[in-house]
């Protein structure tokens, strides 16, 4: 199985006004294509930092991240934006939908940025909204939806662009257990259907249970992989 993402000796130190804080220390691992992987650890262990670095929205102090064998450290800002647009999908803890766009427009947004033609966009968005069970809510604005529904729209947005890797930062943290379970089932289903790789950060046992591979992290160090 080829690696979608390869993390090699990544360290990250935050230099605030006080003492420098090491969020990640010499972290290395890889995620293969089509995997459903969770990065687990307590709060402050460096999960989100790791996900941000993989998602190219943050940069490591040292080490490298390869996305489909491309070293992200060598890429310009514009090229990184292009990688995020074409190869990565994001699901955030607090949904982060664009409040002024409807469900359909939110799901369509990345496709628009990709320059997908109107006909294709309509086709894809209808399909993904059907996948997440929100085809009847496509004209609703985020404020009109429940937390679970908003997170489903976020999943639809992430999956619509057919990325290689979806990065989900504690996607169930703001949801009740029933909704969280439904969301995990949905993501598993999409993982099968589209063969897209999922990489979570979580401390939710339900997510860990569903994950095919778990990377445990503590104090910025990987302590276990199973």
């Amino acid at each position: 199985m080829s690696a979608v993402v390869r993390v090699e000796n990544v360290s990250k130190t935050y230099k605030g006004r006080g003492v420098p804080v090491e969020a990640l220390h010499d972290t290395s691992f890889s995620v293969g294509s089509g995997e459903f992987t969770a990065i687990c650890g307590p709060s402050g262990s460096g999960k989100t930092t790791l996900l941000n670095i993989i998602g190219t929205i943050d940069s490591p102090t040292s080490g490298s991240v390869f996305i489909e064998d491309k070293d992200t450290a060598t890429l310009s800002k514009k090229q990184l934006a292009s990688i995020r647009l074409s190869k990565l999908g994001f699901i955030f803890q607090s949904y982060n939908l664009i409040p002024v766009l409807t469900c359909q427009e939110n799901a369509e947004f990345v496709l628009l940025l990709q320059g997908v033609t109107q006909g294709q966009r309509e086709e894809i968005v209808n399909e993904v909204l059907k996948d997440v069970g929100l085809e009847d809510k496509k004209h609703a604005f985020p404020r009109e939806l429940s937390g679970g529904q908003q997170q489903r729209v976020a999943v639809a947005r992430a999956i619509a662009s057919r990325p290689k890797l979806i990065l989900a930062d504690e996607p169930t943290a703001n949801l009740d257990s029933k909704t969280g379970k439904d969301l995990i089932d949905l993501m598993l289903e999409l993982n099968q259907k589209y063969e897209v790789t999922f990489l979570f950060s979580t401390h939710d046992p339900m997510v860990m249970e569903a994950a095919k591979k778990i990377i445990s992290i503590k104090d910025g160090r990987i302590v276990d992989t199973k």
Partner: protein
Amino acid sequence: MSTPSSLPQLSKKLTLRQFQELPTDLKIDYVCSGVELEHNFIDKYKIIVMLGRPRTCMVGVLAYALGYSYVGNVYAPIILFGALLSFLWSFSANLHNTYTDFKEDAYNLPGRLYLVARLGYRNLYRSLIVCNILKIIIAAFMNLPCLIFAVLVQPLVHQYSFPPLRLKGRPIIGVWVFSLAVVSPFVLGVLSQQTSDPLFSTESIAMMLFLTVWFMAKGFFKNVPDYYGDKAANLTTSATIFSSWKSASIFTLACTVVAYLALIPIAIFNLVPLKVLISLIWLIPVVINCLKLIEVNDGAKGNYCLKIDMLISVGFIITLLLLTKFNILNIVVTVFSLFILFGSDWFGIDSRRNQDTSGGSNLGDEMIIAKIAWRNLWRNRRRTLITLCVMSFSVAFMIYMVSLATGYHKGIIANSVKAGTSHIQIHKETFHSVLKSDLFLEWNSKMEEKMRSYNEVKAYSLRIKSLGLASYTNKAQNITLWGVNPKTEPTISVFHNEVKNKGPLVEGSYLKETDYLEGYLDNNPHVFHLPGVLIGKKMAEHFDIRIGSSMVVTLQSAGGEIKQNLFQVRGIFQTLIPTYDARTVIIHHKMAQKMLSYSSSQFSEVAIVVNDYSDMKPLAEKLKSDFSSSFEILTWDQIHPNLVDFIRVDNVFIVFFVVTLFVVTSIGIVITLLMSVFERVHEFGVMLAIGMKESNLKSLILAESLWLSIVSCICGSILISPVLYMGQTQGIDVSYMLEGASLWAISLDPTIYTEFSLFATLGCFALVICVTLIVSLYPAKKATKMEIVQAMNFV
């Protein structure tokens, strides 16, 4: 060509997607196999319309209107035929291109080739034949020159893509022939002239050359999106002669900028009105679009740039048209063109539709950015409404100030013309500065005939002017004597009008036809008739003279003799210029001729009023070339240079005022935008995280300010409309404020009327939009400077 394994596909009824998946050669084979997928009669016509690409035909129609603007004021049926012919000119050219460009389209525009498959390529051929015949019939209905032009030039235009010449394969000549798509309708417009004046003036030829250069640049642009397709088809075009897309598009950018700037020398040489240069504001979006073309390096995205270029081109030529001649015809053509342009997108009647192109495009980028920007504005309704109110009132105030100044300045000119200055004066050389009676001109029937032949002349009258002395009892006064023809003078000045008719005649009556006669008239021994005289109120007060009283006027004749005559005061006039009222004396021209020893054909001045102020300078030029060089031909502004200077200074103040007002307002805009940016830092972080480019984010902020400025321009215009209407119909009486003032501006009518000036208003809009965009650059830069993670953690 087709491979044996793919041949069975040719018999199938393919969908667009299946067709797009065919190899390039097989696509052509499929179309040429004679398929006719569409059987619905109406849909077939719709496809013909799509292939004719109406949105691209409107530039031709606008060029026709522009050509007609140079020669015509008459609304005749020929205009309708001309507009239709101009439309068909481009329409049939597009059909010809579709018919000949299967190979290129198989690569560049497979969607268009699929449309041909739906229509049937034989039907396409039939439709272009019908189109050509229709053009000839329409040209025949117009006039002979149009028919000859259509018959001669149409085949050349078709040789752009048709064999044997297929000139599109020759980079420069090809692009020149392409420019005929716009130049030909322009020429047709000139040929549609309804009068017997010479067809082509220097001005129209200059514009024709400009359009050639301008549309050649469009041709260079048009070839870039087809770069890879034309390369694949081994076609040598202005783009494929370059080694890369980038070089071809940089060349296009350079040519485009030069083409637009070619308008400047034309304006400098007075071949187009100077105000036409306002249309160069379109150069900004043109350059941005060209830069985008350089960046995209992709056929489909290049086609999108081409689509934008077409929009900009239409915007530019509309501006050019309305600035050249602002009349009902041109407004109708503009509205119709915009309707077709946007309607063809709305109803999907264009063969270069986005979904038909070979790849993806960023068609939606601007749309989604505009949509998000619009909705963002209304997240904080109260703040947006307050900002909009401030901006709208500023816009309204700006329009009002500009309209007031325009009306005021126009009033100055109108009052001055009505007070006797007229638009143009003809004298013997140096007469205007010395008013010497030996400087007279001989007026003959040839000159009379010539004067009547000018379309620009509304009315004219012959006058005699001289310096002299008026005396009454023991008082005397230096005077400027006007000898006027009581029959023709009222057509160019208003001294015959009484106060109740808003005229200056406050007492008595105007001169009569007989006011040069002297003696006992009609053998009536009881009434001795004296020649009549009109004097100003100041003089009447100085002399303490009344209507019916007699006064003496003394002049020095052309021969140097001193001549005196007794006149009876017929009327007293009053302007708001005391010196004018104190020194001007008006008598019958025959009496003046008699006193100055002139013959009946000798006059000092020909005063001319033109139909439209814009006719003044061209007519003066004509007069200079048609009349003797010993004449001085003076236009209004040369007669009153002090007033021209006054208007100039006033304009400078207005510009300063308007700019200051809006710069102050812009501070409010910066604050609003900054607040709104800081409120959404987290959201911007998310957008950047999911792949939005920084440039898109900047565009979003700029789009918000653009919306603000557009909405405030609309609201401001609506707000001020009733005030402008009142000002235009009722006017503002300023006599009580300016009592005792000595101004030509209010010499006859102390009411200032507002005058809506489209160009000044558009200038205000341009200022508002530019200032708003400039000030929003700072918040836009601020938004994109943040690191994504920091932005996403920003609360």
